[in-house]
């Protein structure tokens, strides 16, 4: 087991957003999280890498036990250096070129020599088919290109786990495919990932396990067939049929 979360609770003011989340992720597993908007999916991912601090709960990541409510600075840095995140709106560094966006974490997060970092970054950029854009700034790239660079920025770090927060939600429909293809390829290479997504086809095809998330709780989980074809929970059924109407 690579990652285990135990009883994570998070409250903003008097709004309890996470109501005791338990979650385990095995090495090489792809976990898809689906669920209505506002249910706390983003908040869960942000708690895992300490962009938010939980009110209570604990985490075991590799061999480290971390109190989620009181992580030390060292634990936060260590966790972030073994994880990566892909954001809904890409969040590429605006003041860095495509290549620099990818090498930045290697040089300034992992203290790698610049030369080595650059050549790794070029390989990563090539893998997403954007090597010819290496000197472009984010504002010169389409959303799809930016997100693929966002993915390259994450994978180049060789993280134990990548957190994806609705990586295709901000994209024009015709650009979604390329990004999903990159992600599928990653999954096939054995990359462990947690993917919050509204792309049911991706969840069905790629995820080893699907979780249905609502009102700050995991209401149901199982493999894709169980969740999509034989959902047990009424909320899951409702959600899936509401989604199906969109297609």
């Amino acid at each position, binding site marked *: 087991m690579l990652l285990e979360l135990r009883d994570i609770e998070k409250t903003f003011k008097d709004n309890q957003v996470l109501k005791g989340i338990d979650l385990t992720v095995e090495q090489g597993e792809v976990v898809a999280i689906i669920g209505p908007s506002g249910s706390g999916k983003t908040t869960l991912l942000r708690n895992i890498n300490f*962009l938010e601090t939980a009110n209570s709960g604990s985490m075991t990541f590799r061999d480290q036990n971390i109190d989620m409510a009181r992580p030390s600075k060292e634990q936060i840095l260590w966790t*972030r250096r073994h994880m990566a995140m892909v954001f809904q709106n890409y*969040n590429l*560094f605006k*003041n860095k070129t495509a290549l620099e966006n990818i090498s*930045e974490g290697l040089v300034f997060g992992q203290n790698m020599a610049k030369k080595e970092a650059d050549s790794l970054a070029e390989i990563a950029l090539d893998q997403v088919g954007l090597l010819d854009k290496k000197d472009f*700034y984010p*504002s*010169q790239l389409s959303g799809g290109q930016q997100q693929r660079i966002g993915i390259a920025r994450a994978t180049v*770090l060789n993280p134990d786990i990548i957190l994806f927060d609705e990586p295709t939600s901000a994209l024009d429909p015709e650009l979604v495919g390329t990004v999903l293809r990159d992600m599928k390829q990653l999954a096939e290479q054995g990359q462990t990932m947690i993917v919050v997504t509204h792309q049911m086809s991706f969840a069905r095809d790629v995820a080893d396990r699907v979780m249905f998330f609502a009102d700050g709780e995991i209401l149901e989980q199982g493999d894709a067939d169980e969740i999509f074809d034989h959902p047990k929970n009424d909320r899951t059924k409702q959600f899936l049929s509401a989604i199906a109407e969109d297609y």
Partner: protein
Amino acid sequence: MFDTRFAINSFPKILSVAPETIILSIIATIIGLILAIFIVIVRERKIRVLEPIAAVYVSFIRGTPIIVQLYVVYYGLPQLLVALRNMGLNTTTNGLPVMLIAILAYSFNASANISESIRSAYHSVNYQQYEAAVTVGMKPTRAMTRIVIPQLITNLIPNFSNLFLDLIKDTAIVYNIGIVEIMAKANILSSLGFKYVETYLDALIIYIIICWIFAKLFQLLEVFSRKRVSHTQEFI
């Protein structure tokens, strides 16, 4: 009648003291910038006790005319030094150079204005830029110096340029405490020749030239730094 000859003869004389104006403006801006950085850190990190003091200091300076601030430093500083000496400190109390007094007054003034500009430039950097930087494993200070501050500086340049040009123009009152800069020289030549339009027109032209040059310099700086953040070209 407009005395063209007098105007032309006065021009180099007035121009010869332009360095006073420029040096005062540059030094005050540099000191003001350093003070402003401290003020911003104190206010943004909400450092106890200091934070409200900094806030009051800024609103005080921004809420009062610069000439009043100049007089307060001009008349107040010597008295403060006397008081300090009476308390047993070894301070000189006579002959504080007026230039030093002006530099102090304008540095205080600049610090308040610049600190507000820096804060607004800081707030216009998307917080998620910082978050993205820490998620790739940068320490918080690294995330600031590599990602946030460069973007902050790009945002800051236009405002900073305006503040600097304002400061140059604001120094036109330091003749009141006896510094001979552009305006003072124009005053002196006017009263000697009993001709006014000529010398003030000279002063006007010199101010325009100085401001134009600095405006251009800042523009170049901005273009250079925008290129590194590139908002200019969308999509290629």
